[in-house]
């Protein structure tokens, strides 16, 4: 389970990047967070990964406070970033092997890696190819394979579908659904409302470091997500002083 409790981050230059953010991602749930650039989505992920300390509040992973025990907390989380280049001179399997070992998975064989890569939709002939020749979609698949191998109960994704072609995007979503079905808590920051609409259980909108709206997929059943997105991104509604739906 992923949890943010009144999480606030003010940078040294005085900029308030996150302002009292509170949310929880339950096991078996996909939570998609929307927001314009600079809204605080990536800051939230950085706080959850312990890359920056919070000014106040707490970020918890499986109940472990990230600020107090960052290594203990990170044991329970996988991370997929927007545009990871990985090690270009390594093959897909070599990259996977290295990051698996960093994640503590030491007993995996080449066939195990091949199986995961196959599952994420990477073509077989690419397994032993150098990653520097990979397209963005192929690298993203490898990125998700790294997260799959770690098999942590929580998954953080930072705009993972940006730049993916429709086919890769669809395959990517299928893997996320599989993860959810396995009971993992999935937090995804994204601009991709169309893909998010297909898989999200809950959706949140962030604006200037605040969570201004959060709704379940059932609440959104009769609403147009695109209209909502535009509405929340362009102007903060007067009624959203407290996030609606929370």
């Amino acid at each position: 389970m992923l949890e943010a409790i009144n999480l606030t981050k003010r940078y040294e230059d005085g900029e308030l990047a996150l302002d009292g953010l509170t949310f929880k991602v339950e096991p078996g749930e996909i939570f998609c967070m929307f927001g314009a650039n600079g809204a605080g989505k990536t800051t939230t992920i950085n706080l959850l990964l312990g890359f920056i300390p919070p000014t106040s509040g707490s970020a918890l992973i499986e109940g472990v406070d990230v600020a107090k025990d960052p290594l203990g907390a990170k044991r329970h989380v996988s991370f997929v970033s927007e545009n990871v280049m990985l090690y270009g001179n390594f093959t897909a399997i070599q990259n996977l092997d290295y990051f698996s070992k960093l994640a503590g998975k030491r007993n995996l064989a080449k066939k195990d890696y091949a199986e995961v890569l196959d599952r994420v939709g990477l073509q077989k002939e690419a397994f032993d190819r150098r990653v520097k020749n990979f397209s963005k979609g192929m690298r993203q698949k490898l990125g998700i394979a790294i997260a799959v191998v770690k098999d942590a109960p929580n998954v953080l994704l930072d705009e993972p579908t940006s730049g993916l072609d429709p086919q890769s995007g669809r395959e990517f979503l299928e893997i996320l659904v599989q993860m959810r079905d396995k009971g993992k808590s999935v937090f995804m920051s994204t601009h991709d409302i169309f893909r998010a609409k297909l898989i999200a259980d809950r959706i949140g909108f962030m604006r200037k470091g605040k969570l201004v709206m959060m709704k379940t997929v059932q609440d959104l059943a009769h609403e147009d997500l695109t209209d909502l997105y535009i509405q929340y991104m362009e102007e903060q509604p007067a009624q959203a002083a407290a996030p609606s739906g929370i």
Partner: protein
Amino acid sequence: MLRDIIRKEILDNITSPKFVFTFLLCTILILLSVYTGVTNYRAEKKEYTASLALNKKNMEAQPNYNSLAGIGIKVSKPPQVLGTVVTGIEEAVGRVAPVNIAADPDLIESKYGSNPVFAVFGALDLMFIVKIVLSLFAILFTYDAIVGEKEKGTLKLALSNDLPRDRLILGKAIGGYISLLLPLLIPLLLSLIFLIVMPDISLGGQDWGRLLLIFLMFFLYLSVFFSLGLFVSARTSRSSTSFLVLLFAWVVIVMVIPKAAVITAAQARPIPSVHEITAKKDAYLQQIQVEGQKSVRDWVTKNQADAAKDPKAWQDKFRQYLQDYQQELTNKIDQNNAALERDYQQKKRAQQNLAVNLSRISPASALTFGSMTLARTGVDEYDRFLASVRAYKPIYTKWINSKLGQSINFQTGEQAKISLDDMPQHVYEQEWLSRSFVRAVPDFVLLAVLIIAFFVGAYVSFLRYDVR
């Protein structure tokens, strides 16, 4: 986990084009430099042997001691076998020191003097390759060690695991260093084999010790740039910035500081020019010669009456007088020259020490001085050799003066044929390894301190590094 990081770092480096490029270039340059060093050494050794034989032959060919005294003796400086890897100042300073009654010995006939074009490009020895080329490679291997991973996103991905940062930086440092050493070790080993199999190269036990210490110094020097690269990489947020900062630091360390130190020392501790000293010596010599001629004339005038009484006794007396007086004049010249030289050397040493100490801030200077000390091709070795020749000069002049006095037959005017059998020989004892090592210790310490300082800087910076 540390082993995995080291392994990854090595694998990532050795599969990169920069490794292939470095390996090829290192192999070519190192082997070329050692080959050039060996070729030069063999030529110098041949020249040295020929010079000794020629000098002896030339001396033996003199008709009498008077003409022998005129040409004097030429003391040749033996080439150093480790000049094959560290040429030092061997080619810039002279290889021969003429010793005669009048002049103060100095080393002349340098390689650069006989062919100035060598001075334009300098020596392509192993120390030069390490100092200039390989230090750049060390930067090339580390400038993006941390910041490059940040740019690729792999740092964030790696640290999203329960991976302690200290382990990551340690693994990267060890793996990166091994990767840097790999393209060096193979050509260096080949060079050693080359040195062993070459027929004219004989390395004694001390030479091997010296060679190992020189190689250790090379590795320490490269480690300084390696840890500096890590440090800068952990302090910057773009690899292009890191590269520029390191390039600037390299220029300052390798090019600016050593030259600036010499210029500063020359300004702060000026010394009289060599011409000034030579002019003073020449003036005194002229004065002595005038005095000498007058004294001899006075002695003959004063003792003229005795010549008529007993010519044989007079001749013996005159011979003894000439011998004693010649020695007295030689002593006077030597004392004057020694005093001038002492003063000059004192000032030169003060300037030299200031330049050396100032430039030692730079690891490039520490490498230069340390490796030259160990290879016995530095300024100290030159000074020691010259001092030994200067110490030999009074011994030689005493011998030649005694021969001059004894060999003149005033009745016939004939002079005795020369014999070099009892001529005292110049003896030069090479510095022991232990002594050289003690003198090189400050350079080792300085390099070690810089490595530790930069590595600690990199370590601490990385613990606080913003991976976003």
